[in-house]
């Protein structure tokens, strides 16, 4: 595989900065108690969503997890509608009915964050089935955590995709924890990707802190799926900087601060910025400009969300069923 072009680097960088700043601002708003419900931040894992989604079209479908903001941003999500949703406003992506754990944009093929661990994978497989059935050349991509590979729904989905040879690329975001429990307590394997063989699909391990590495492997796996050669399992070794939910819980002792600090030395944004500067693709000022521009968009989006109205109580009974158009 050839080196990524400057366009690709810019693209990956932009997606990651968008995710990072979305999440940092979400964390801040959450600590200000402005956002209801549970928030699971994606900070640290940006390279995975960015590297994968840079290979997808708006028609390709993804399913996501409880930690879903990053996936939607990477897929091109609109900040305004995202923040409005997190605020529970009527202008949000889900009209305020879903919130963080169900945020989605069907027009971008983002079939929703999901509050049930593992539940997104079977749905992505269904989308993959439709793609094959319709022969539209699309692929579907379920994102899920390391912990999710222990639940039955994931297993059934992976086997189904392999048995039916569907165009699906499984992306496991291995951040080595499920909530507050380290992976070694819940899994007796070194690499999650070792599960792939048992489904009869290739399993690939990549550095999930390196957007370019993710991008390369994902582009191969996605091309393979588009060709009709079936599913791939990709394990991206990554890390989450903040707590399972929220930013930093008090007295939460399930991991050492030093572990977090070590991971930060491999920060995916820092890494791609270094690379872009070294390669002469960008200057430090260029990159800072990106951050500033994205932050300005976010400020605007937050203002939009804050000014937006809450949904009307009569919305409670709307959208439960699809009513068939007359005629």
């Amino acid at each position, binding site marked *: 595989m050839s080196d990524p072009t400057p366009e690709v680097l810019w693209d990956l960088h932009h997606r990651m900065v968008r995710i990072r700043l979305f999440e940092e601002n979400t964390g801040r708003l959450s600590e200000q108690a402005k956002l209801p419900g549970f928030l699971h931040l994606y900070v640290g894992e940006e390279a995975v969503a960015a590297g994968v989604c840079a290979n997808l079209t708006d028609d390709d479908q993804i399913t996501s997890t409880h930690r879903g903001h990053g996936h939607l941003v990477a897929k091109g999500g609109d900040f305004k509608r995202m923040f409005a949703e997190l605020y529970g406003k009527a202008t949000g992506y889900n009209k305020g009915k879903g919130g963080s754990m169900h945020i989605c944009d069907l027009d971008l093929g983002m079939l929703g964050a999901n509050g049930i661990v593992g539940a997104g994978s079977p749905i992505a497989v*269904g989308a993959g089935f439709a793609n094959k059935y319709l022969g539209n050349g699309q692929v579907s991509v379920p994102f899920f955590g390391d912990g999710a590979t222990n639940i039955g729904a994931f297993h059934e989905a992976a086997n189904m995709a392999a048995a039916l040879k569907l165009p699906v690329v499984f992306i496991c975001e291995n951040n080595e924890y499920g909530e507050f429990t380290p992976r070694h307590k819940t899994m007796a394997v070194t690499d999650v990707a070792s599960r792939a063989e048992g489904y009869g699909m290739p399993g690939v391990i990549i550095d999930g802190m390196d957007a370019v590495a993710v991008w390369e492997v994902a582009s191969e796996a996605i091309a393979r799926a588009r060709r009709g050669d079936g599913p791939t399992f990709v394990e991206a070794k990554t890390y989450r900087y903040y707590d399972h939910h929220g930013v930093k819980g008090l007295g939460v002792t399930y991991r050492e601060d030093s572990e977090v600090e070590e991971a930060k030395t491999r920060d995916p944004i820092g890494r791609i910025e270094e690379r872009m500067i070294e390669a002469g693709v960008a200057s430090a000022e260029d990159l800072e400009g990106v951050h500033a521009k994205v932050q300005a968009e976010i400020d605007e989006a937050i203002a939009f969300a804050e000014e937006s109205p809450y949904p009307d109580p009569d919305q409670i009974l709307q959208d439960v069923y699809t009513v068939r158009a007359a005629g």
Partner: protein
Amino acid sequence: MTATESDTRQLTYVQAWSEAIAECMRDDPNVFVAGEDVGGYGGVFGSFKGLQAEFGEQRVVDTPISEQAIIGLGIGAAVSGLRPIVDIMFMDFTAVAMDQIVNQAAKLKYMFGGKAVIPLTITTFGGAGLGAAAQHSQSLEAWICHVPGLKVVQPSNPHDVKGLLISAIRDDNPTYVVGNKLMLGATGHVPDEMYEIPLGVANIVRPGDDVTIVATGRMVVEAVEAATKLAEDGIECEVIDPRTLQPLDTDTIVESAKRTNRVVVAHEAVRFGGIGAEMAAQIQEEAFDYLDAPVQRVGAPFSPVPFSPALEQHYVPSRKTIAQGVRDVLARNLPGA
């Protein structure tokens, strides 16, 4: 087939089932079937017979034994523009797939602010009476009826099988269609053409003025038998088959209750917490001043389904227990007394 043939054509319950699906598949290329043994074998109950031969392996898909992924396949395909029919063989196996049915299929549309359209049909067969024991004989529709976002359909004869199934498949919402294992071979007139029976409209199977019997699924047959028998004693029962339990056609039921003043509700499921409880609650809410007796519920006793026919025959509600229910409501505050 000539018009006359069509007017009298008899099909079995399960033939009507596969015919409805076949016609929907001819009608709409986006309709497909997936489930265990639905293809080569035509479904363990024969409800998908001949479909793979006609429509091929792409449209009639034998899946792994993976009920969660089967439902998920349906959801993902539905959101992506297809109109899936996915099968959960025995109703008891619904328990394995509850998350996908309840937390996903039922809720995606709402959680997404209305945008998703999920024209998914889930088919399954419930009911006892075959000596199939506690894990292959249950009637669990009450669970599904309790979940906003789902529709629940339960046909009681071949004619309704076809019309309700076509409506369910064409419906743009997740529907859960429950057949009855003991009725597979039951015959009845089934029109040749495609027709819909609207979801949410009850059927007054037999008119009567003395007592209303609301019965579901196979209990409709038992209720009609009970009514016929009771008529010999001059007791005229009105038998109502709701046909869909969610939405439930409360209006038709309440209207009847107001006229007869006495109601028995009957289902195969365990009485405690069954859909009969909801019916009884609604009837007393809506027709309180008209009732001469409490709404009487006929259902299975509070135990798993026993294997031995010696036990099962007493376990499953029947024309006998329904008739007893009718006599019980009539014994209260005797009419004219």
